[in-house]
């Protein structure tokens, strides 16, 4: 018993979402009850309430439904926070209702969660609301998702039904940004696999829910790399002490490190770090600390201290997902709000709503307004530059709230995707250690041409397009690309081909085949292709581009539908047999290192627009397929007939 006082447990924050019917409250009640977290007086009150309602068994759901209105309507209408701990961990549950009209509550609960529990009713399977929970978990970048397949008692504890749901949900989740997905079959009502395994599902060999929550290694929704210190308050007890108080949004910092203050861009060193009344050498993510600096610099609330060689985005313009939370008024294109981000508050203007997202299907709809509980992608301009990171990378510096300037109510929650000045980001990546100079040069802007792409396309009588052929060496990319280029040229299209070997003679002659060099290679080609695209061309790129991340990077440079990924699929053995340049032979003899398909991986595209199986089709057939596709995309459907 005595070790209780010294027990250093860690903390897991998770969110649960579901309707009354899912048995969510019963699951939480069951975890509290079976792990002996319910006190006698609470239990007595529960028994009284259940009896009053004429129920024979104690209704565990009553434990978590707090407000009277909820007890009357028997629904949960807000985010309720619950606490319990086991000898291993302390848990904070953000318990939210699952109905569509409570999307804002789910978003609120999800914003601080490390893990989401999604409940399915084994009988009903995956409902629109289950999909909504998963989409919100993905949008809010909750790192871990566990699906509790509940009410297994009502499907006779059948493994087949469970497997079916696992398969269906996994297929759906692949479209989302969920990094860690697990499943547990349970019966909250009967207690199977909640705290104890029980003996009714011997076919399930995983952990029961509570054990799972205790054991899961939480790669917290924390970013431990990028040091970000939004200044919250200045502490100045006397002339010799000037401390900057704040909480590390992410990363770590040590005494003596070189830092830069934003927005002034002054460089200095960290002189001392204080946590409470202790002086320490290092502070880390989520810790409240006070920093003193080597030089006297004018710093106030809203400024940000960062490491000199790792700067955030600095921009007034950004592109974000926004969940609208106000009942009274909708978010409109052209609307003006107050924006609170880290410790900064400023004005913000909504330039454009790019689309509204259907939270049940991910479907995009164009709109000029977002109503309560709707989520959309918007482009905004703030009255001051914000210091941010994309939300996916850093939840603390990527999230913001919108405040109504007349009622001061919190009306929206935003997750920044990225700055709209993609070019600046590029420059910065290239500069590496010398990023500061690039940042000071924020007056480098994209020179706007007097000819728009639309005008060029109109003159060419076809749309611009980027075709990206990826596949193993010897799969036939270059052959297809050459034929497609010739055929389109003869049809009168503006077309140009970029080829892997050719760019390495000039544009990328300084690069080798390491991971970094391959990334830089693809990035340069991507930008070259983008310039040609901007010039109105149909650009054909044929590159092995083995890494999905690199291809996705290029895709992100282009507008939707302007980038066509074509997977030139061919069995490695067939490629080796073809070996047009004798490279496989060399790689297998060890004369070339890091050769894709031999000693370096090729990551297959997950959702290419087109797949060409060159082992099964002859060259002309594959070329024809590409041509048909291109003509449709370029708006030339009728031209060729």
């Amino acid at each position, binding site marked *: 018993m005595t070790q209780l006082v010294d027990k250093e447990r860690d903390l897991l924050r998770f969110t649960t979402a579901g309707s009354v019917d899912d048995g969510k409250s019963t699951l939480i009640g069951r975890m509290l009850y079976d792990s002996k977290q319910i006190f006698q007086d609470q239990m007595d009150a529960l028994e009284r309430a259940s009896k009053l309602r004429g129920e024979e068994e104690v209704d565990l759901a009553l434990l978590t439904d707090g407000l009277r209105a909820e007890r009357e309507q028997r629904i949960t209408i807000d985010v309720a926070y619950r*606490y319990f701990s086991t000898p291993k961990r302390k848990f904070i549950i953000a318990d939210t209702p699952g109905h569509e009209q409570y999307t804002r509550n789910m978003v609120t609960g999800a914003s601080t969660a490390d893990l989401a529990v999604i409940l399915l009713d084994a009988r009903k399977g995956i409902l629109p609301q289950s999909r909504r929970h998963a989409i919100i978990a993905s949008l809010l970048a909750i790192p871990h998702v566990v699906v509790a397949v509940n009410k297994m008692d009502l499907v006779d504890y059948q493994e087949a039904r469970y497997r079916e749901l696992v398969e269906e949900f996994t297929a759906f989740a692949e479209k989302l940004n969920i990094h860690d997905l697990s499943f547990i079959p349970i019966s909250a009502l009967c207690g199977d696999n909640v705290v104890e395994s029980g003996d009714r599902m011997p076919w399930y060999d995983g952990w029961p829910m509570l054990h799972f929550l205790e054991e899961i290694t939480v790669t917290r929704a924390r970013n431990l790399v990028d040091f970000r210190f939004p200044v919250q308050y200045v502490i100045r*007890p006397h002339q010799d002490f000037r401390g900057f108080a704040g909480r590390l949004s992410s990363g770590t910092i040590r005494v003596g490190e070189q830092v830069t203050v934003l927005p002034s861009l002054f460089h200095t060193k960290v002189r001392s770090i204080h946590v409470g009344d202790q002086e320490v050498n290092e502070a880390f993510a989520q810790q409240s600390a006070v920093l003193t600096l080597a030089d006297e610099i004018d710093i106030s609330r809203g400024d940000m201290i960062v490491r000199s060689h790792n700067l955030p985005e600095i921009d007034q313009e950004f592109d974000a997902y926004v969940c609208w939370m106000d009942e009274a008024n909708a978010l409109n294109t052209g609307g003006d709000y107050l924006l609170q981000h880290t410790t900064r508050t400023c004005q913000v203007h909504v330039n454009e709503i790019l689309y509204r997202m259907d939270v049940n299907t991910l479907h995009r709809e164009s709109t000029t307004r977002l109503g309560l509980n709707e989520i959309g992608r918007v482009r905004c301009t703030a009255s001051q530059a914000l210091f941010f990171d994309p939300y996916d990378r850093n939840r603390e510096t990527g999230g913001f709230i919108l405040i109504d300037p007349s009622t001061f109510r919190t009306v929206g929650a935003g997750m920044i995707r990225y700055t709209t000045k993609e070019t600046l980001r590029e420059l910065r990546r290239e500069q590496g250690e010398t990023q500061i100079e690039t940042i000071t040069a924020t007056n480098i802007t994209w020179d706007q041409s007097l000819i728009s792409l639309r005008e060029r396309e109109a003159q060419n009588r076809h749309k611009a397009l980027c075709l990206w052929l990826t596949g193993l060496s010897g799969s036939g990319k270059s052959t297809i690309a050459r034929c497609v280029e010739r055929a389109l040229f003869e049809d009168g299209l503006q077309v140009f081909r970029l080829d892997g070997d050719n760019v390495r003679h000039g544009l990328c002659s300084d690069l080798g085949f390491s991971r970094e060099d391959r990334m830089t290679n693809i990035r340069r080609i991507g930008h070259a292709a983008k310039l040609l695209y901007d010039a109105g061309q149909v650009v054909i790129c044929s590159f092995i581009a083995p890494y999905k991340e690199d291809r996705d990077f290029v895709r992100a440079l282009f507008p939707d539908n302007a980038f066509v990924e074509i997977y030139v699929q061919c069995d490695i053995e067939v490629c080796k047999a073809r070996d047009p340049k004798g490279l496989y032979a060399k790689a297998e003899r060890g004369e070339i290192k890091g050769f894709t398909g031999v000693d370096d991986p090729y990551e297959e595209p997950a959702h290419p627009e087109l797949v060409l199986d060159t082992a099964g089709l002859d060259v002309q057939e594959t070329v024809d397929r590409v041509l048909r596709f291109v003509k449709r995309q370029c708006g030339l459907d009728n031209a060729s007939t």
Partner: protein
Amino acid sequence: MNTFEWLESQAIYVIREVAAQFERPVMLFSGGKDSIVMAWLARKAFYPGKIPFPMMHIDTGHNFQETLDYRDRWMKEIGASLIVRHVQDSIDQGRVKEEEGPNPSRNALQTVTLLDAIKEFQFDAAMGGARRDEEKARAKERFFSVRDRFGQWDPKNQRPELWHLFNGMKRPGEHFRVFPISNWTELDVWQYIHREEIPLPSLYFSHEREIVRRDDVILARSSHVALQEGEQWERARVRFRTIGDATCTGATESAASSVEDIVNEIAATRVTERGSRADDRRSEAAMEDRKKQGYF
């Protein structure tokens, strides 16, 4: 980061946000362990600077002397300035009327004294040591809880709180109640007190005193508690789990004489701490009703 470091860091962040976002904040101090921990965190939040806002005690006049002595010592220790406002003054001014009956409690009356004091000093934010685990109605309370000009809490009109962003913007007449230790449980508070070696009033530790048992609640003998028919004073070894108005704060029979004993006792206990407060037992939705009227 372990649980305590995390909880401490979050509470300090919230306290600093209050100092930064509001013009005239105040921290309420009751002498209870939660407000003692909160004041301790306030000292840490601005160290080596001074706490940049005053502490305020709403004295019901029904306090244990031990609490008042402790209060004055503690304010000196953490270097805070203290404002005291008395429920008795509100009664004398006719602002409120003492409850009638055999067991008059001033718990409800302190709401008026508190609101008057908030008006008197034009406080725009008052920090309190309430925790969400105390009671069902508090499970939905925000860190920054907006109150209208009557101090009322409208559960349907609270601002969503996302990430670590707290919206403290207010219109004229509105003020905020802020709860920096919202995410702490009773056990967390005790473990933290142990870890930080925070001194506490002696009432929290087991001692022998005269008590009376009433409706399963043990009340300590004081001039504020009168015996009812059939009752008599008896001596028992007790301690208090919360410290408030002597008329309604129940004691528990306990031999726990150190923080360590208390932590172990809490971990094994079967009754919630508010379970021993007479005022919560009046109806199932008692807390919600009082909150709507501006109770802390």
